C-alpha cells in the first residue's frame, strides 16, 4: 500500500484505500481488544503485572478506549465509506490517493496519540483524553480528508438521487469535524469548571450519537439490501431515522451530568431528548428487519447478514438502556457503576462492531474479488464475538447493579469489590474470547487476500460456493 503514496491517482487500483483502511481496522481491533483483555485481567487479578507505570490500569484504559474507537471503529467506517460511497453513486472514489494518504496519516496519528497516552500525557477528560495537538491532528489530517473524499464523491456521483446511506456518511463526517473542534475547546482555550464538564460530555455524547451510531446504521442500510437483493423497505422511514438522529441525538449531552450543578431546566430538556433517542432506533430497527422479509434464511446462512441483523437487534436493548438510564430517577442508582461500562460496550462492541464487521467482511471480499478463505473461521469469529461480548455485558451489568446497591446503601467499598469479583473474572473471560476471535479474523482475512477463491466480475461473494 505504501508504494501508492507517491503514485499518480490514475495508477492506483480502485478500492486500494478501502483495503488499506480495512486491514488497518482489523489490526487495531486485535490490538484494542487485546489491551482490553489485559485491562480486564488486572481487574480480575489485581496482582497481575504491577509496579510498571506504563502498564498501570489508568494508562492502559485510555489506550484501549481510543484504539477501539479511533482505530477499529472509525477506520472500519472509513473503509466502508471508501467503497460504499462511490458504489451508491455509480462512480469511482473521488481520490484514491487522498484515501491512501488518509489511511496512512490515520495510522501515524493514532499511533502517536496512543503513545502519548501510554506515556501519561492526557487531557484527563474521558473520551477526549488525547492532548490538544492530537485533537487538532485528528480534525485536520484524519477527519477532514475523509470528509472531503466522501463529499466530493457524492458531488461527482452519476445518479440523480442520493441513497440513504450516503446522507448519513456525508452528514456524519461533517459533524465529526465539528464535534472534534467544539468538543475540545476546553483544551484549546483552557476552559474549566462546568463549561469544561459540559463540553467534555457534549463531545463524548456526540462522538457516539453523531458519528458511531449513524454511520453504523448507514452501513446496515447498504449491507442488507445489497446482500439480500431486497429493496430497502421504506425510503420514508429512512427520512424519519435521519432527521431524528440530527434533532434528538445532538441535544442530550447534559443527561451525562444529571448530578452536576448544571441548570435544572437544561437537565429536563436533555432528559426528554435522551428518551427520544428511541425514535431513530425504532425507525432503524423496523426498516432493516422489514427489509429482511422473505430472506430470513440468510440470517442463518450468510455471515454478513447474520452480523448485520445481530447488530441491528442489539440496537433494541442499547437504546432502551440509553433512553431510560439517563433519567434522574434511574441515573441516581446506576451512575458511576459498571452498568455504564456494560452499556458503552453494548454500543461499541455490540451494536456498532457487528454492523461494521459485516461491512469489512463484505467490502474486503468484494474489492479484492476473493471469496472468504474459511467460512468456518468466519463462523467461529461470529460466535466468539457474540458469546464473548454477551458474557462481558451480562457480567458487567450485574456488577453495576451490585455497585449501585453498594453506593446507595453505603456498603463499605471493599465489600463491594469482593462481591463483584466473580463478575470481573467473567468480564475477563468474555473480553479474552473477543480478542481470540479477532486474531482468527485477521488470519482469515489475510488468507482470503492470499488464497481466497477468485470472484468473477459482476458476482457477489455469497453467490459462489466454497471450493475448499
Amino acid at each position: 500500500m505504501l508504494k501508492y503514496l507517491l503514485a499518480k491517482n490514475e495508477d492506483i487500483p480502485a478500492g486500494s484505500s478501502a483495503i488499506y483502511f480495512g486491514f488497518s481496522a482489523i489490526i487495531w481491533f486485535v490490538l484494542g481488544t487485546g489491551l482490553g483483555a489485559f485491562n480486564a485481567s488486572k481487574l480480575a487479578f489485581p496482582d497481575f503485572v504491577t509496579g510498571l507505570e506504563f502498564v498501570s490500569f489508568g494508562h492502559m484504559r485510555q489506550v484501549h478506549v481510543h484504539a477501539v474507537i479511533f482505530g477499529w471503529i472509525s477506520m472500519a467506517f472509513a473503509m466502508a465509506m471508501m467503497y460504499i460511497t462511490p458504489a451508491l453513486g455509480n462512480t469511482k472514489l473521488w481520490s484514491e490517493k487522498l484515501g491512501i494518504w488518509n489511511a496512512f496519516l490515520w495510522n501515524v496519528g493514532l499511533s502517536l496519540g496512543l503513545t502519548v497516552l501510554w506515556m501519561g500525557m492526557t487531557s484527563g477528560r474521558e473520551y477526549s483524553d488525547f492532548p490538544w495537538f492530537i485533537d487538532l491532528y485528528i480534525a485536520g489530517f484524519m477527519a477532514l480528508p475523509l470528509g472531503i473524499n466522501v463529499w466530493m464523491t457524492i458531488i461527482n456521483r452519476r445518479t440523480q438521487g442520493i441513497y440513504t446511506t450516503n446522507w448519513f456518511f456525508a452528514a456524519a463526517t461533517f459533524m465529526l469535524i465539528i464535534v472534534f473542534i467544539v468538543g475540545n475547546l476546553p483544551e484549546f482555550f483552557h476552559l474549566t469548571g462546568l463549561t469544561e464538564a459540559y463540553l467534555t460530555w457534549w463531545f463524548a455524547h456526540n462522538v457516539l450519537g453523531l458519528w458511531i451510531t449513524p454511520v453504523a446504521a448507514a452501513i446496515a442500510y447498504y449491507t442488507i439490501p445489497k446482500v439480500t437483493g431486497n429493496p430497502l423497505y421504506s425510503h420514508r422511514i429512512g427520512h424519519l431515522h435521519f432527521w431524528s438522529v440530527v434533532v434528538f441525538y445532538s441535544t442530550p449531552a447534559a443527561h451525562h451530568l444529571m448530578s452536576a450543578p448544571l441548570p435544572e431546566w437544561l437537565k429536563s430538556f436533555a432528559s426528554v431528548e435522551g428518551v427520544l433517542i428511541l425514535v431513530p432506533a425504532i425507525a432503524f430497527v423496523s426498516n432493516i428487519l422489514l427489509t429482511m422479509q422473505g430472506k430470513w434464511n440468510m440470517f442463518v446462512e450468510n455471515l454478513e447478514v447474520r452480523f448485520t441483523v445481530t447488530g441491528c437487534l442489539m440496537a433494541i436493548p442499547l437504546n432502551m438502556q440509553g433512553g431510560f438510564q439517563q433519567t434522574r430517577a434511574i441515573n441516581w442508582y446506576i451512575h458511576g457503576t459498571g452498568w455504564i461500562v456494560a452499556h458503552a460496550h453494548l454500543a461499541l462492541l455490540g451494536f456498532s462492531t457487528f454492523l461494521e464487521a459485516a461491512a469489512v467482511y463484505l467490502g474486503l471480499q468484494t474489492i479484492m474479488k476473493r471469496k472468504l478463505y474459511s467460512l468456518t473461521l468466519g463462523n467461529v469469529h461470529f460466535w466468539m464475538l457474540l458469546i464473548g461480548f454477551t458474557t462481558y455485558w451480562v457480567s458487567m451489568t450485574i456488577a453495576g447493579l451490585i455497585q449501585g446497591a453498594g453506593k446507595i446503601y453505603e456498603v463499605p467499598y471493599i465489600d463491594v469489590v469482593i462481591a463483584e469479583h466473580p463478575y470481573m473474572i467473567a468480564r475477563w473471560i468474555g473480553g479474552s474470547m473477543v480478542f481470540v476471535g479477532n486474531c482468527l479474523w485477521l488470519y482469515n482475512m489475510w488468507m482470503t487476500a492470499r488464497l481466497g477463491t477468485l470472484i468473477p466480475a459482476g458476482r457477489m461473494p455469497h453467490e459462489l460456493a466454497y471450493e475448499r
Partner: protein
Amino acid sequence: MAWTWNRAFTTLSDDATVEKSETLWESETLGGLTEDNNPIPVPVVWLVALTVMTAFLVTFPLWGQRPTAALYAPYVDLMDKPEVVAAVNDVEAMKVLLEISKSRFTGHDIEEATRHPLSMDDLRIIRPQIQALEAKGVDLKDFTVVGPNVVIANFEGNYRPDGTRIRQQPWWDKGYTIDIFYLAYFFFAVFVIVKRLPPNTWVPRHGGH
C-alpha cells in the same frame, strides 16, 4: 417541483412532480440498490407516539430531585424529644422520629421522606446547618441536602419582592417548553419531507418487476 396543498395528507407535490419522481425512482439504481415507497407502519407510528409520551412522563422535573432542607426540618425540631432520646439505639430512634414527625408533614412530603431516608448520624451532621437557616428566617425549600451539606438549591426561579430568588424546582420548567418546540418543528419538518414524495399507495416497479 411545484407544491400543492389540496391533498396535504397524500402528497404535497403536484402531479407533474409526482410523475417525475416516480420515473426517476423506477429508472435509477443506486449501486444496484433500490428502495420501496412503503408508508411508515402503523405500529411504528404508535411506538413513536408512545415514546414521546413516555419521554415527558419519566423525565418529569420533580422525579429524582434531591431532598430539600424543609423535608428534614420536622426531624430536626423533634430529635430531642424524650421518646427519641430514650430509644435503645439510633435505628430505633429514627423509627420513633419518623412516626412522631408524620403529623408535621404536608402534601407528598411523607412519600418524599420515605424515598430519602437518613440515619441519626446524618441528622446530627445537618442539624446545625438547618437550625442556622431557620434562625435566618429563609425558606428552607430553597436549600437542598447534598450528602453532609445543606446548600442553596440549583434552581433560578422568579424574584421575590424582597429581592431574593426562588430556588425551588417548578413542576414544569423551560427545558420542557424547549422540548415541545423541538418536537413540533421535528414532526412538521419530517411530515413535509415525507409528503413531498409520491403518495404511499404508489408501488415502484424495480427493474420492470
